[in-house]
């Protein structure tokens, strides 16, 4: 009568914080399809198993996000992959997120395995598990998820009955630290690699693990650490030359998540070339979606998913060629179809962007966020953030005059060549914002400043730079806070300890893998969450693994061969070096839409040269 009461997980759900993280009560087209397939008794998913004949032709693929549900569900790329996989022949995909520590404890106490969200299948029954690697500080969660599924955490300990453990996403571009834990790493866009990878996994079913991995390693963009280490062979990053189509549908959660909206990508890549920005460098070149496609995509997704909000996604969205047109058309549609809200993830700090935002009714009430990143013009030139003082002035003026009264400003500290003057500049800009507000008789105006410690990232022009120590960052954070005399300005800085750990990982190599495993065995979980982070644990692990962290966070020799150099990113090391030198001579490099600076992608069909890449038909390939 009440089968749910026979569910061994029921008691666990009743004990954890936020059980909705695990309940998987979602809506999606494919969920409905799976339900009807189950009803047809062809696929007996409810029992966790398919009929053996069907099973042998199919690939059961579990997409894994090493953070909690509400974070993972908010990450669009992850949803995109699910959609992609489900549209491949003979592939059935499911998802799993990292259980929070309370759930982990309960699972271990009850000796229950971690199961997928939709079909509640234990992870070790899948053929492949694909982790999305977004944030270094979530790496310990990968080990938790494997371990809770009775899958050996190290690739070398796995055998033929274990699923293939695959990793992809920005994290894969610094493969050293994680390589012993993965069977396969993917460098590039999922759209380009997954179809081939999936068919290869299906075709090699029943073969020896080594043979299967060997077959996979032949696929462009695929790297098999157990074969590829130290062979000196370059592996190419593979990317789509034009935007893949808007997915036909998305999964709509019932539990509240961080970004709860239908998302359509405007473009990939970024034309700006800020020198600290890894996202910008590893996703070049810019590939834009056509305006009509964006509008159609939003309308269709809103209709199909029922979401009351649509988000336009990209790096630096205001740079989208058709941004004005898209927003205008969508606002009209939103009125016609019954209201839906539109949101833009980021605003550039200039009058144009604020004007755009002002034109969107729905964003008016919230606060407005800008990222000037550095406090002085000099330092902004060093990091190639092409925002002028006048831009800051005019965008603030405009924002306050248009009725916003809460402004958030993001900065970094510990940037290369930084002096005290640059830090004071942060306080000065915050104060200036408030003065502008007061001048406009805005008495309620509030400015909140958030300062992150700079982490030099691999594949950026700053990959050779020294990262500030924990002590330096704390002192700088305090200095900024101390200089602020204004009660309407709040100043916060990120935990220097977490920034430090992120920095070690960001330019890490295989020698860190042991430390990662030690720290995890010692209890490290969710290191990107302040409530679970513990630096002592990591220091113990580094000591035990005989790792000198300064080797990782310190300044790197210009002639050093990095452990990530074997990945052919499209962007050349030579370009990165040129940009590094320009940084030190405080020279600004214009963005791709103004002039091509020959980053290397011109060899790969980038024809941006000031025109934008929306004209995909011309892309050489």
């Amino acid at each position, binding site marked *: 009568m009440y089968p749910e009461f026979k569910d061994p997980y029921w008691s666990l759900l009743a004990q954890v914080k936020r059980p*909705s993280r695990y309940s998987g009560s979602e809506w999606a087209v494919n969920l409905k399809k799976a339900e009807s397939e189950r009803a047809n008794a062809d696929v007996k998913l409810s029992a966790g198993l398919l009929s053996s004949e069907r099973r042998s032709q199919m690939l059961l693929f579990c997409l894994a996000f090493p953070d909690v549900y509400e974070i993972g569900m908010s990450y669009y790329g992850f949803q995109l992959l699910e959609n992609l996989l489900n549209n491949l022949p003979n592939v059935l995909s499911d998802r799993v997120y990292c259980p929070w520590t309370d759930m982990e404890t309960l699972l271990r106490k009850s000796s229950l395995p971690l199961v997928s969200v939709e079909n509640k299948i234990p992870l070790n029954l899948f053929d492949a598990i694909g982790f999305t690697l977004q944030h270094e500080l979530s790496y310990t969660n990968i080990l938790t998820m494997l371990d809770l599924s009775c899958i050996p955490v190290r690739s070398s300990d796995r055998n033929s009955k274990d699923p293939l453990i695959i990793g992809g996403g920005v994290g894969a571009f610094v493969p050293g630290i994680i390589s012993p834990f993965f069977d396969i790493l993917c460098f590039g866009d999922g759209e380009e690699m997954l179809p081939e990878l999936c068919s290869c996994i299906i075709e090699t079913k029943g073969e020896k693990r080594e043979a299967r991995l060997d077959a996979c390693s032949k696929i462009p963009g695929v790297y098999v650490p157990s074969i590829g280490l130290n062979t000196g062979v370059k592996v190419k990053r593979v990317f789509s030359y034009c935007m893949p189509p808007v997915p036909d549908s998305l999964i709509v959660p019932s*539990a509240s998540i961080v970004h709860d909206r239908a998302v359509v990508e405007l473009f990939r890549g970024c034309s700006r070339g800020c020198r600290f920005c890894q996202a910008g460098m590893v996703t070049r070149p810019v590939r834009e979606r056509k305006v009509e496609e964006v509008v159609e995509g939003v309308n269709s997704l809103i209709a199909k998913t029922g979401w009351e909000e649509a988000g336009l996604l990209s790096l630096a969205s205001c740079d989208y060629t058709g941004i004005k047109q898209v927003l205008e058309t969508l606002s009209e549609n939103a009125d016609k179809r019954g209201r839906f809200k539109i949101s833009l993830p980021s605003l550039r700090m200039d009058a144009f962007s604020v004007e755009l935002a002002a034109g969107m009714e729905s964003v008016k009430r919230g606060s407005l966020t800008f990222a000037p990143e550095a406090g002085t013009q000099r330092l902004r030139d060093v990091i190639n953030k092409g925002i002028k003082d006048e831009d800051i002035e005019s965008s603030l003026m405009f924002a306050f005059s248009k009725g916003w009264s809460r402004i958030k400003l993001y900065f970094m500290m510990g940037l290369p060549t930084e002096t005290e003057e640059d830090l004071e500049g942060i306080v000065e800009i915050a104060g200036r914002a408030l003065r502008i507000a007061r001048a406009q008789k805005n008495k309620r105006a509030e400015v909140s400043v958030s300062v992150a410690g700079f982490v030099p990232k691999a594949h950026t022009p700053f990959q050779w730079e020294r990262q500030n120590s924990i002590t330096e960052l704390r002192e700088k954070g305090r200095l900024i806070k101390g200089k602020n005399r204004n009660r309407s300005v709040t100043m916060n800085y990120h935990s220097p300890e977490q920034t430090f750990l992120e920095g070690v990982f960001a330019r890490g190599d295989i020698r860190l893998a042991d430390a990662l495993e030690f720290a995890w065995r010692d209890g490290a979980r969710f290191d990107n969450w302040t409530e679970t982070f513990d630096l002592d644990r990591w220091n113990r692990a580094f000591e035990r693994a005989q790792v000198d962290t300064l080797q990782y966070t310190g300044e790197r020799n210009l002639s050093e061969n990095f452990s990530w150099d074997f990945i052919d990113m499209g962007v050349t090391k030579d370009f990165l070096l040129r940009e590094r030198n320009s940084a030190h001579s405080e020279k600004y490099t214009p963005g791709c839409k103004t002039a091509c600076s020959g980053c290397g992608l011109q060899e790969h069909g980038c024809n941006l040269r000031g025109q934008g890449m929306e004209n995909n038909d011309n892309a050489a390939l």
Partner: protein
Amino acid sequence: MPRYRIFYEKRGPACFIPHIVLPTVLTRAANRASHSKNEDCGLMPIIFQMTEGFSPHAKMSFASELPVGVVALMEPVDIWLTGNLSDSEFKAWSDNMPTGFKLNDFTEIPDGSPSLNKSCPVSEYLLKSSTADRMDSVREALFKIAENKFIDCRDEGEFIRFTVNNSVVALGAIVRELITENAVQGWHELRIVRVRVGAQQ
């Protein structure tokens, strides 16, 4: 502006979706049901009447709060629409609910009828212990609590069926007492079904 009372069920892990997100779950499903494809079949979009004020939302009224982890078979919700709701529209709405949710029935509520809480003052539950060996102590404690607070409480197969007046005592308070009485350690040792919320029978 017709007012309808709809009845939904919540089964399986969906029971752990908190009550507070139900309005969103319902409106999104209705939005999906209003998808243009349905218009081709002659279905009208389901459009809610919105509340006035700073952040307008669909006007809805729920029965007494359903705690997480409780199976619900027939939960009433009052909704206000801008047009009439047909059987086929209602079915499309139900088909578009997330996994674990289903809409079972609906009925139009005439103008001037009392509020949902007034016309549905009692809740009927089935309750048992998660393990058979604790059932006796749960039964004993529950009957004791029942004496002064419940309308009705009786054994029914493996469960105890009881009916409470929502304004007298909430389910949460009963479970707290069971914990105080040492009958159970917490919610996880109980299995509870809310069979219905409605009029006294």
